């Protein structure tokens, strides 16, 4: 794995106003495959303030998972990560193993999608969730066990003392996910990245999970990056939303702004495709076509092939990088259509 911070700022965070907790600039993740280089994430940038939650929305293949993995250095061996990401001024990209391990769990923790496969089948749950913590603090087995029970209780698992000794396959799906959240909490991180943690759960359990996350956020002031493709979750949880398509950020803004007036045609399409209970709908709208299979870097807009509006501009959408246009209250979208908003000066694709 190689990862390099960008040449311009080797390690020092750019000075900013009320310094956000997480600053990501031009994060790029590419894979070398048998078919050539594939760009999973293409120059994505955003900020996240402490205690806030950002939902990263997109279809499968949009690069949202790859991006979140890259922040923790958990991407695959044949991935190349470029760009910068600062957590409280500390560079996350391209650092050595020791530094990475120091950040993982303590400053950033991750909650994965499928708890059954994410947990080791042969070790008891209690042992697993405090493994990192125990190693760091050198705590005894009893202390670690007690902490595990404490964590499990906090995430709402009944009979925690019993449960801590059980194995992952003995838990229900919802409980397993809670256990994963407990694991993420164990190091008391400043930021939690959750990669579609609720996708595999049914709706009621999902709701409980979201409630739990929100509680925890409020309680501990943890920032949250929540990757999902489910707009209902987004509506519930997000302070801010980042829409990704084909590896690129296509729109970024506060939840209210985006729901009220989505600027990018893709975001619009997403909003429109969610069936609404309060209005009769003639047909279910879908965005025709499927997400792109990513080649190397493309020049134009990644959505060009599917965009219903692209033909209006000839082949501009396919050939030219769309400019940044401003919406409500700091919202930005990358589109050629004038109605997406007035063009705002590019500051190296900053948020």
């Amino acid at each position, binding site marked *: 794995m190689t990862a390099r911070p960008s040449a311009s700022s080797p390690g020092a965070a750019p000075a900013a106003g009320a310094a956000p907790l997480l600053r990501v600039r031009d994060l790029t993740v590419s894979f070398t495959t048998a078919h050539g280089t594939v760009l999973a994430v293409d120059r994505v940038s955003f900020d996240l303030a402490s205690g806030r939650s950002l939902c990263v929305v997109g279809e499968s293949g949009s690069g949202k998972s790859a991006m979140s993995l890259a922040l*923790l250095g*958990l991407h695959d061996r044949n991935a190349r990560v470029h760009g910068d990401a600062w957590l409280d001024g500390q560079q996350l990209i391209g650092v050595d*193993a020791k530094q*990475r*391990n*120091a*950040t*993982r*769990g*303590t400053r950033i*923790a*991750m909650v*994965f999608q*499928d708890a059954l*496969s*994410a*947990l*080791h*089948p*042969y*070790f008891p749950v209690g042992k*697993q969730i405090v*493994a*990192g*913590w125990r*190693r*760091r603090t050198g705590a005894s087995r009893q202390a670690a066990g007690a902490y595990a029970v404490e964590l499990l209780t906090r995430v709402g698992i009944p009979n925690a003392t019993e449960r801590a000794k059980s*194995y992952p*396959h*003995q838990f229900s799906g919802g409980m397993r996910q809670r256990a*994963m959240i407990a*694991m993420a909490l*164990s*190091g008391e991180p400043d930021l939690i990245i959750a990669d579609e943690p609720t996708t595999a759960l049914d709706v009621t359990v999902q709701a409980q999970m979201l409630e739990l996350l929100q509680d925890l956020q409020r309680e501990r002031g943890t920032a949250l990056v929540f990757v999902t493709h489910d707009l209902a979750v987004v509506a519930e949880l997000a302070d801010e939303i980042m829409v990704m398509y084909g590896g690129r950020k296509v729109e970024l803004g506060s939840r209210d702004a985006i729901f009220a007036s989505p600027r990018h045609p893709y975001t619009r399409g997403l909003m429109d495709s969610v069936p609404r209970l309060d209005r009769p709908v003639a047909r279910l709208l879908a965005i025709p076509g499927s997400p792109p299979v990513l080649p190397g870097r493309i020049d134009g807009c990644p959505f060009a092939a599917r965009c219903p509006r692209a033909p209006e501009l000839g082949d501009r959408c396919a050939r030219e990088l769309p400019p940044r246009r401003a919406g409500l209250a700091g919202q930005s979208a990358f589109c050629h259509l004038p109605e997406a908003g007035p063009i705002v000066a590019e500051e190296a694709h900053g948020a």
Partner: protein
Amino acid sequence: MLWLVSLLTFSIFFLLPSGDPAQRFVGRDSTPETIAQVKQSLGLDEPFYEQYLKFAKGIVPVPGWFLDEKVYFSYNTSVPVREQIAERFPVTAVLVIGAAVLWVGVSLLIGLLSAVRPGGRFDRCTQWLGLLFVSVPTFVTGYLLLYFLWFKAGIAPGTGIPSDESVWTAFLNGRFVLPWICLSLFFIALYARTTRRNVLEMLRADSTRTARSQGLPERVVVGKHALRGALVPLVTMFGLDFGALLGGTVTIETVFNLPGLGQYTFNAVIDADIPAVMGTAVFTSAIALVTVLIVDVLYAYLDPRIRVT
């Protein structure tokens, strides 16, 4: 199962025309009367099923009955089979156990190290070597080892165990070292490969990613998480192989002239020494079964998903 095995074995050997056991029992100078007498005492003139029943009794693992002396009495050497097995088994046991310790340790090590850097030089080297050792039969490696280490370099003892040496002394004299190496090489090649594959699979698993996300250093992730997951299929393999080997490795024992169970079985079969054959068949099957049982228990211990709560 044991029943079926012994029944079949017996049937086949019974049907094979391999000279008159009674005659062999008595020896060269014998008169027809003596032969007839012996035949009668051995019960050879009894019908098939009666003969078999006597053997069948010997399968029951009750101390008085198991491979009881009266029935399991070698035709050739006129010694109870049980005694002979007791004599031979330690040799085989030392051979197999020693080799097992060696091969398990080495293959785990090699497998782990290769998996950590797949495609790297160490890995590719060991892969080729592994394929090589899997392809060469043990008797050839045996020869090679003997040639270079004993004949040329003179650092290893030659073949065989002198009759005045006990197994323990032989062990101390290092007579087992070459056989251990020989036997291990093949299995190391096999097990290292499997270990490597299993560890790689574990390393690719989601659970490894989770462990890493906790900030656990790589060597803990590999040594504890990945290895633990990789072990389980290996345990099954090992159990089967070990159990089978304890029944005697004929080729190694032949090459190195070790008076073990394998050679004994071989000779018994060649000479159609039916009680001996039956005895060893029962004994080896029993051992195999016991090993399988132990493996099952071990497996449940290692993989909690198997356990019935």
